[in-house]
């Protein structure tokens, strides 16, 4: 197909950001800026809808391929294309960014123009990661994501934002540079950055183990996996609501995407070799962070820890190296993208009204905000993994696939599900039920805008929960190719 849809997807937000930055900021009202941002991102979303429509599910390999030489001398090319694994994530991104802008119209008062610009840049970089099939431009986009995110947390974050944003940036960078070295080594061996070519190449076993660890350092920080997860609660707590939404919704998926797209096909031997380590780390992540989440006083922190636990399911699923496992992990990624984004929005709603995130400051919210509690319930149950919601399918498939590996693994993941249910229910109970506190009484229920985006998210959760085939049709073929 000659129509350069992927480049267009990358460029639209950048061009939007450029036009916005060139407009004079004094004349524009905040609302106009947000509205123009919304128009751009909605257009981007509609554009990205063309991908699943025109994507041919029966074919193998990448589609909508664009190829331009970039650095002749080093054989590095601008080489983009999508397959079933990337399309749902692109859709998730383009779907969440307008919601991020929508939810911050009221809360972001100062420097609105910059805010919208950073979000647009962020969107185009993230899409760049998902579409690139050359290692170097993958890395370029993967790193570039840090810049707007650093600024978003640093400028509009909470009190301790500097600590959080520095920690976020440096953790991720430290992981990534090791991957950079590995990428350079791979390119020097294979003489090409093309992902497909590298997948066919077999490295020495010892070297492959080292390379795997280098990639692992980067992705494990991004996912985040157990010992590298400490940046996440800080970043989430300090980030503005929209920042948390995009962080939990999409940025965490970059790591898991990297595992599926790069680590598995490149390092077949090492993936099997390191299977036990990753299982162990993921089990610790699931059980330990769930217990930590139980004891949190801050809502955002609790959801952040629950994110780590849920991403533990994803890594376990991926490294079972079975079709079901990876399918389930992928489903869990998308589901977690929607649900955790929604949960952060839920926290954002009350935070905007009551200016506190402490669980103990809330009780009996149901009585004042019934619509709010309704949506909260849907997302809470989805996060718990109730059948009929999207959370169930992913967790179920992952747990099922672990049986073929080890029963102990199944045991620990199942414990994670129980713990997950307990902290989410506890959170819901503490906030929504009980006596009405006096200062809770004046809280207003959801506005129409909020109802709008919550219904969109709730609809998606239910749809995926009831008809998961929608997603599986898309990913099955591509995933079956990445399994060894």
């Amino acid at each position, binding site marked *: 197909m000659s129509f350069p849809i992927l480049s267009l997807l990358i460029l639209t937000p950048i061009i939007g950001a450029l036009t916005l930055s060139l407009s004079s900021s004094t004349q524009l009202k905040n609302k106009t800026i947000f509205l123009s941002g919304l128009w751009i991102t909605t257009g981007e979303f509609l554009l990205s809808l063309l991908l699943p429509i025109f994507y041919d599910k029966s074919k193998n390999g990448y589609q909508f391929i664009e190829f331009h030489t970039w650095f002749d*001398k*080093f054989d590095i090319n601008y080489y983009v294309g999508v397959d079933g694994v990337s399309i749902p994530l692109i859709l998730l991104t383009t779907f969440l960014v307008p919601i991020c802008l929508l939810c911050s119209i009221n809360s972001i008062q100062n420097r609105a123009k910059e805010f919208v610009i950073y979000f647009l840049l962020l969107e185009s970089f993230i899409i760049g990661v998902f579409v690139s099939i050359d290692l170097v431009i993958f890395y*370029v986009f993967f790193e570039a994501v840090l*810049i707007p995110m650093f600024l978003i947390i*640093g400028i509009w974050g909470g009190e301790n934002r500097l600590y959080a944003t520095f920690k976020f940036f440096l953790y991720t960078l430290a992981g990534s*540079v090791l991957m*950079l*070295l590995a990428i*350079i080594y791979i390119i020097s061996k294979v003489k090409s950055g093309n992902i497909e070519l590298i997948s066919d190449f077999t490295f020495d076993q010892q070297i492959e183990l080292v390379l795997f660890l280098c990639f692992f350092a980067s992705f494990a920080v991004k996912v985040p996996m157990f010992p590298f997860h400490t940046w996440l609660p800080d970043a989430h707590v300090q980030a503005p609501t929209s920042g948390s939404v995009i962080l939990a919704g999409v940025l965490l998926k970059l790591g898991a995407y990297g595992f599926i797209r790069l680590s598995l096909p490149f390092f077949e031997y090492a993936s099997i070799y390191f299977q036990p380590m990753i299982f162990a780390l993921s089990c610790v992540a699931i059980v330990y962070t769930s217990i930590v989440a139980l004891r949190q006083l801050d809502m955002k922190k609790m959801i952040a820890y629950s994110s780590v636990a849920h991403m533990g399911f994803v890594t376990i699923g991926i490294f079972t190296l079975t079709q079901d496992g990876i399918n389930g992990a992928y489903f869990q990624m998308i589901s977690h993208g929607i649900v955790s984004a929604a949960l952060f929005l839920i926290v954002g709603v009350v935070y905007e009204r009551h200016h506190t995130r402490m669980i103990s400051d809330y009780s009996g919210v149901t009585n004042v905000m019934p619509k709010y509690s309704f949506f909260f319930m849907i997302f809470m149950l989805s996060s718990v993994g109730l059948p009929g919601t999207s959370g169930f399918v992913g967790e179920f498939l992952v747990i099922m696939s672990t049986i073929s590996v080890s029963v102990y693994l199944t045991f620990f993941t199942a414990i994670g599900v129980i713990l997950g249910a307990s902290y989410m229910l506890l959170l819901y109970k503490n906030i929504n039920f009980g006596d009405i506190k006096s200062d809770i009484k004046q809280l207003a229920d959801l506005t129409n805008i909020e109802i709008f985006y919550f219904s969109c998210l709730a609809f998606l959760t239910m749809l995926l929960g009831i008809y998961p085939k929608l997603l599986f049709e898309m990913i099955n073929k591509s995933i079956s190719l990445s399994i060894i």
Partner: protein
Amino acid sequence: MVNLYQFIPEIFILSLILITLCFGLFNKDRAVSLNTLGFILLSILLLNYGKEFYSSTQISLNTINLFVLSKIILSIGSIVFILLLKRPLKNENLYRYEYVLFLLFAILGSFVLISSNNFLTAFIGLELQSLSLYLMAAFNTKNLSSNEAGIKYFSLGALSSGFLLFGISMIYYDTGSFNIQYLDNFTAISEIGLSLVLISLFFKVSAAPFHIWTPDVYEGSPTISTLFFATLPKFASLIFLFRVYQELNIFEIKSLNYIFQMVCAISLLVGVYGAITQKVIKRLLAFSSINHIGFMLLGIMSYQFMSEGTLFFYLIIYLITTFGIFAVLLNLRTVDGEFTKISQLNGLRFTSNSKSISMLVFFFSLAGIPPFAGFFAKFFILSASINDGFILLSIIAVLSSVIAAFYYLTIIKNMFFNKSEIELLDDNNKTGKVIFISSGLIITLFFIYPDPLINLVDNLFK
């Protein structure tokens, strides 16, 4: 019969010096603008006929390319520098045409240094360059710290020149020749001599552990002189160091190679650890330049794989970034004089769009974050070094750049997140503005359209 063709660039600069000397007596403004014109002419001359100057000599084509490219870069750099220097010097009541003369002598020295095939000529070039630098450091005679910087630079620089001479004489004693190109069959004596020469050169490019002068001199000198120290002479010395490495096949001499690797690793680490706690921006830039020298040394060592292209590319990007950063700094002043502290950058975002965003670009580029050009510069150096088997050094290099990211981020934090405490005056210097905006654009747009720069470097090495 000596062929004078190959000296045309040097003769050109020498005549520029004489003309400036005469002209400056009557009209200093015109003397300065005359030099801009002169260097533009020189760049055009070099771009078009550069290779023909050396065609009658026996120098290899590769080396000729090296000469021409580095001289082009030097003369373009001088144009930018001369355009920049007027306003900052005027602000400090230092605007005299002698400053340009020192500059010209330093550039002449750099030219001689780059194209010298003989250790004695190199020594003359290096001394000519260094002596002008000492004067430029101490140019603000009424300022104590400027004097201090000049004296420190001079006394330490003289020491390093002593090392250089001693080293050269040891080599001469051993081999009976000063010529760089024909030296081989080293014995222990000339190895020691060479190591002394290397130490002196490391001092000139401020590689650790020979870097102690750098932060003090950077801080004390007038900012415009600091810009000069950080860019052109360092570039010239580095090119000479590269030539020494290449011509003498230092990678084959185990002990010297070991020194090289150690200096590279120490520079990478000292650069970042020194910079972390700095409060004064020029000191921070001094340490950060040490870190970058580490990268450049890595580039020098791994030239076998991807030729000189990677090193040159890194140098060009580094020069552009440094010019940009200093153009911004020179454009800012506090109410009570020049601004020095990093904390004085607080809230720059609110006072000036163009400056803060350019600084953001420069510092992310220095930190090596894509999509800015600095990333690609580091990427190519690392590619070369990994291909040449310097795995450990590459790991040190990338880890040091993570730590470096910390203090670059601190500056960005000050500009973007903090509220301003002191009012910064905008100099509104149009040339400065043009320079930092255009260098910011080059750094950013390189990602989209890398061909021109890559081709410039590539074509000259074909």
